């Protein structure tokens, strides 16, 4: 939404000038440009074909039987729970971080912004090792955590959440920062003239206005956390019930039983597609 031009605030009827302009902008009809459509279709095929491969190779006759195995449900439940909690953590820390990057001038901001994206470019396994070096039992912070609070993160479900949040947070931060930069800051000024403190401005004006960006970021973040493998297995290890999420189960199944791996992958895919699609519908209709 763009409120910077007065036309948008004007009445739809009498201001013929703006109405005409809008109508003209929408009225580009005619044939679809194949220069765009062909690569678009090719891109779609490229993305969807591997999924088709999974579906074709799936051992349909034994599918239900395999699904009913307790360890599958256990891994699925763990995956969903960890990805959701990790996303919540990312929201708690990532939205303020995005706000800081978008709204506060401070020396070295460009560097900080680059650092935020490090987990994106870092191979997840390396990220996992890095987490071990910091939060592990003998890590810089982990040592202190254990001696002071008796808390160790590796090999625990909390460790899975830490690894997933580490890898997924940049998706949220980048998305929310973009939304914040796109938002018209004059609304925040208007709120200030009405007596809103900066926190109130953020909570009651900024956040609602960038909510679509926050939701999009959270969805990306959740999806990334759900599929997280490298950092999780390296930092949190792999033990059924506590740290073996679906991707880890898929990987191990691949070692001995590729068919089981396909089943697990399909379950993960189906669940995530259902959740994301329903979320999206809700948001599109709400907006």
């Amino acid at each position, binding site marked *: 939404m763009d409120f910077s031009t007065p036309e948008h605030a004007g009445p739809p009827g009498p201001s013929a000038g703006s109405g005409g302009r809008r109508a003209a902008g929408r009225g580009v009809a005619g044939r679809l440009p194949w220069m765009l459509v062909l690569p678009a279709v090719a891109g779609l095929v490229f993305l969807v074909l591997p999924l088709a491969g999974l579906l074709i190779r799936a051992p349909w006759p034994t599918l239900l039987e395999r699904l009913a195995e307790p360890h599958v449900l256990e891994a699925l439940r763990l995956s969903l729970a960890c990805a959701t909690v990790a996303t919540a953590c990312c929201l708690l820390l990532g939205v303020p971080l995005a706000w800081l990057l978008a709204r506060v001038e401070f020396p070295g901001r460009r560097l900080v912004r680059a650092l935020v994206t490090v987990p994106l470019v870092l191979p997840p396994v390396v990220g996992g090792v890095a987490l071990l070096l910091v939060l592990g039992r003998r890590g810089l912070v982990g040592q202190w955590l254990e001696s002071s609070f008796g808390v160790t993160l590796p090999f625990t479900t909390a460790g899975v959440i830490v690894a997933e949040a580490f890898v997924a947070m940049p998706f949220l931060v980048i998305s929310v920062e973009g939304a914040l930069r796109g938002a018209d800051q004059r609304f925040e000024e208007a709120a200030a003239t009405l007596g809103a403190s900066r926190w109130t401005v953020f909570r009651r004006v900024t956040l609602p206005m960038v909510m679509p960006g926050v939701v999009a970021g959270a969805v990306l973040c959740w999806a990334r956390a759900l599929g997280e493998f490298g950092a999780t297995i390296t930092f949190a290890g792999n033990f059924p019930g506590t*740290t073996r999420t679906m991707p880890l189960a898929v990987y191990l199944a691949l070692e001995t039983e590729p068919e089981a791996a396909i089943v697990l992958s399909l379950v993960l895919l189906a669940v995530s597609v259902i959740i994301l699609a329903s979320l999206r519908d809700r948001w599109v209709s709400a907006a």
Partner: protein
Amino acid sequence: MSRRLPRWAIALPVALALAGLSGCGSGEPAATPDAGSSSAAGGGAGEVTVFAAASLTGTFTELGKTFEAAHPGTTVRFNFGSSATLAQQIVQGAPADVFAAASPATMKTVTDASLAASPVTFVRNKLQIAVPKDNPAEVDELKDLTDAKVKVALCAEQVPCGAAAVKALDAAGLKVTPVTLEQDVKATLTKVELGEVDAALVYRTDVIASAGKVTGIEFPEADQAINDYPIATLAKAPAGDLAGQFVDLVLSQQGKDVLTKAGFEAP
């Protein structure tokens, strides 16, 4: 064993290969031939493509150089990885000349598909208890791993070192509750090196390769769980004779020397 590469150089390529799995929200089917595989270049006359278990990275790299020196103009390309993954890649048509697996089971995947005949066991590997250098939990025998206070890492049962660990523990009649079941032996070893666990069951070769970062403890039950490494030329080997010549080198006295120095046992 200073000839071996530093541990990161070994752990990272393996790790990076695994990392590929994490990007897509689910495991890829094994049907995808490894894009990083050098064999994609095709089997030129002077090129041998060897798929070998990750635990052979150091020794085979050295043997590859020896082979290249003995056959001027020839290049040996390696694809190191989990034996199971490599076997899947071969079954799915990856153009390999030689397959050296860390277990007879993974070799069987390939022989069952009639892609290789008459594999030969060229080395055996034995488990050791690996503990951090300062051995904080004071582990000195297999029974110590059953103590609840001792954090233990094992390989997952699905990978050869995990299967061997289960066999050894069963033979000793011990029940160990590990904190983690790692996806491969290098990852297991890393947990010991970083001190995240107090002990792990890994191969003797891995302890030696860690160049003093961990301490290896022999235990008698290891003899019950010895791992055979089979090697075979592949039926459709693009390199033809060169493939057989590479296997010959591995089986030769020179090959044995390199392998035993790294901690492998002769079959």
